[in-house]
């Protein structure tokens, strides 16, 4: 008898199938997509390619922007003055997104939330994590940001201003973390490896070298 013989009298748990009833919004998405394809406005392959493009975006893009800002003060100034144009300088396709970059300093810690839905700088960070979309994160980050940050393991002293940004309308936000002490003279690639998704949302600090 070998190890993968399944004729041995007990059941193995199978991953749950997602074959419950579709929600109204799932049905609506399918209906609209099928109509657009039937009417020749989009092809199924175009839809697939957009999904593929969406899934391919990752926080590596944002990390590249942050690392470049750390090594190039003039670039950092342009990034803070106009986030969209500065990202496009690095060849990142920002689409129609208007980006505001907010800088963490010894006196200010920034954190991003979208209380109304889940607005997120996808071009730079990819798809948002589930917790970012949760009601708990959205409701609590505006009301008790320090308690939320503590739950992420991020303790901000009372002497540092916590600045919450509620992404309610047409802007998208990226936190520019402070460069960790002791990384002076590092290459952009080395620095980018210290920059995390959570650090660019503002719920964590960069990795320490």
């Amino acid at each position, binding site marked *: 008898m070998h190890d993968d013989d399944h004729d041995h009298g007990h059941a193995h748990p199978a991953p749950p199938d997602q074959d419950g009833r579709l929600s109204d919004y799932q049905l609506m998405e399918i209906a609209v997509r099928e109509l657009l394809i039937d009417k020749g406005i989009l092809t199924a392959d175009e839809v697939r390619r957009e999904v593929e493009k969406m899934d391919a975006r990752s926080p590596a893009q944002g990390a590249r922007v942050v690392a470049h800002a750390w090594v190039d003060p003039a670039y950092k100034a342009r990034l803070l003055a106009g986030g969209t144009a500065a990202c496009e300088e690095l060849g990142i396709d920002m689409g129609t997104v*208007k980006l*505001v970059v907010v800088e963490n300093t010894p006196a200010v810690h920034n954190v991003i939330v979208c*209380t*109304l839905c889940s607005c997120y700088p996808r071009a730079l960070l990819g798809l948002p994590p589930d917790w970012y979309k949760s009601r708990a994160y959205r409701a609590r980050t*505006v*009301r*008790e*940001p*320090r*308690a939320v940050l503590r739950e992420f393991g991020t303790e901000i002293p*009372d*002497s*540092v*201003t*916590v*600045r*919450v*940004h*509620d*992404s*309610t*309308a*047409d*802007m998208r936000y990226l936190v520019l973390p402070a460069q960790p002490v002791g990384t002076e003279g590092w290459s952009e690639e080395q620095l980018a490896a210290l920059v995390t998704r959570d650090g660019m949302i503002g719920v964590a600090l960069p990795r320490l070298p």
Partner: protein
Amino acid sequence: MSARFRPGDRVAVRSAYPPGHIRTPHYIRGKTGVIERLCGAFPNPEELAYGRNGLPAQPLYRVRFRQDQVWPGYLGGAGDTIDIEIYEHWLDPA
């Protein structure tokens, strides 16, 4: 675009509760803050939501509020703030 407010101006968010697609969060209605920056002008989302063109575009501001004036009993530094994007038609001089 003619913007009614400039950075540094004190503004009050309207205490209004109309039905529809409103991008002014409930928790900030009636509160007073300071214009942080003008973001530009954008089609009005309250109109876009109903298939209209949202024109004329509305000036959109980032408004900074003191947390201890937004939440009674706020726990945190006295300097803590929250910045929120708010369309001009939701703001009055304060």
